[in-house]
């Protein structure tokens, strides 16, 4: 089995994507992170869902966690509303946010190559080179493929 067999399309975001829209993608698909693409649609980096969540919370609360407790429910709702103007670009420009270099694998990479590279890079997702549109392999897909092979080998023996 090769990367091209298990590749899939993933929702991607770019610098201009509103934080709220990125959050909706994460919530809808239960994603651990998002791939950020450039203006031409080329995958650039991976951002974690926790960092996207950070865009919804005012910066001063993240700087001083003690303040998180002082809001009442109405105040908290107003606080969420302020996140509307924030974009993914702010995350990319923030020196304190660690974006991950996107791991790349070849379309003909074998399952074991992909698995080894993902373990080494602690990556949840890898972009597949040589596929026309942006295509990715994700950790659950790789796991699923490995377990399928494992089960098949077990059945044969």
């Amino acid at each position: 089995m090769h990367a091209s067999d298990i590749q899939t399309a993933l929702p991607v975001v770019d610098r201009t994507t509103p934080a709220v829209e990125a959050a909706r993608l994460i919530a809808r698909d239960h994603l651990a992170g998002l791939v950020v693409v450039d203006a031409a649609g080329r995958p650039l980096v991976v951002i974690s869902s926790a960092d996207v969540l950070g865009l919804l919370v005012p910066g001063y609360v993240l700087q001083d966690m003690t303040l998180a407790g002082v809001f009442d429910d109405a105040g908290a709702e107003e606080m969420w509303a302020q996140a509307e103007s924030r974009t993914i670009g702010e995350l990319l420009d923030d020196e304190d946010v660690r974006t991950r270099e996107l791991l790349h694998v070849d379309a003909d990479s074998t399952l074991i190559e992909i698995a080894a590279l993902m373990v080494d890079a602690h990556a949840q997702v890898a972009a597949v080179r040589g596929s026309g549109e942006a295509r990715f392999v994700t950790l659950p897909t790789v796991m699923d493929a490995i377990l399928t092979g494992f089960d098949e080998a077990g059945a044969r023996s």
Partner: protein
Amino acid sequence: MTTQIVLALIVFVGAYVFIATEKVPRITVALVGAALMVVIGATDDTSIFFSEDSGIDWNVIFLLLGMMIIVGILQQSGVFEYLAIWAAKRARGRPFVIMVMLVLITAVLSAFLDNVTTVLLVAPVTLLICDRLGITPVPFLIAEVMASNIGGSATLIGDPPNIIIASRGGLTFNDFVANMVPIVAILLVVFIGLCWLLFRKELAYDPARVARVMALNEREAIRDIPLLIKSLSVLALVLTGFVLHSLIHLEPAIVALLGAGLLILITRLEKRKIFADVEWETLVFFAGLFIMVGSLVNLGVIDMVGKAAVQAVGDNFFGASVALLVGSAVFSGIVDNIPFVATLAPLVNDLVQAGGAPAEPLWWALALGADLGGNATAIGASANVVVLGIAARNGHPISFWTFTKYGLIVTAVTIALCIPYLWLRYFAG
């Protein structure tokens, strides 16, 4: 002048230029400078580690370390956030009253904590309060950082230059309280008046938004009451130790370290939390600076300049105080005041040794100039840079010139007020 002295001066001036331009991290500059001083034979291990005159000033390093540990633990209690929100609610959302209360809280805190820590504590809660009131936090942040620089000059532990001055001049915590608190109190009153003049147009009061401040629950800020009680008790003990220096004969560094040790013992926090606020880079930077300045002491450069200064000053100590005050303010507005004071302290010590009691006000002139000069520009003090960073990250950028425009006015007024204070307190009559 020998080749060795010329080389040492090149290293020293070069290091200053690199520190001032901030092209290279200051810790790198201080360590490379110190290493070069050793290479050219201007200092050695015995001098660096064991000499009181030309070595690392361990009193300064360990006083800073002890206070950083105590403050780092205390700030986790949430007491500062509690105070700020409580003040905003007491002010019933009126912006100028809130500004006055935050300025006073910041100034008082700054007298006991270092300025950067103070603004790191006060700035986020200020952003929260202004957010609730729907007003710009920019005037508040500028006023607070300036209050922090003013308040920090009041005590021995309020600003790193004061710690260096105290150690080099043999001055106690009580000496600082007696000589600096009166003028700092006057400066704060005047500063509040300046805040009104400078910022009043930006402090619009919207009664409709007051309820949003009143809805904040400051009690939720204090998450660990036992930690609060323990850390405030230890801080009170440490301050008592500073005040009772003449009775217990313990140097401030020892008192702070004992306090830090006691606090670690009774709070049993994990290591990460105990040392969260310790700025190891700053401590090493200090060590490097002391080695560089000590090298000039070893080579007789400081002594030479000191003798020239003694001759130039004669017995005109008021003139020298004013020159030192204004010169320190100008210099500290442009570059970091820590290396400046580290260099000037041995020189002032020479002048005070030669002039006796009438020359002692020179120490206060140096402290006031170096501490208050930090307000002059956006890069005049580390706290200014930190606040500008916080403001920018929260969508309220403060430009260099916006800050400096206010900073120059505040510095000019506060330094000008120090001149009659020095005259009336030490030289009149």
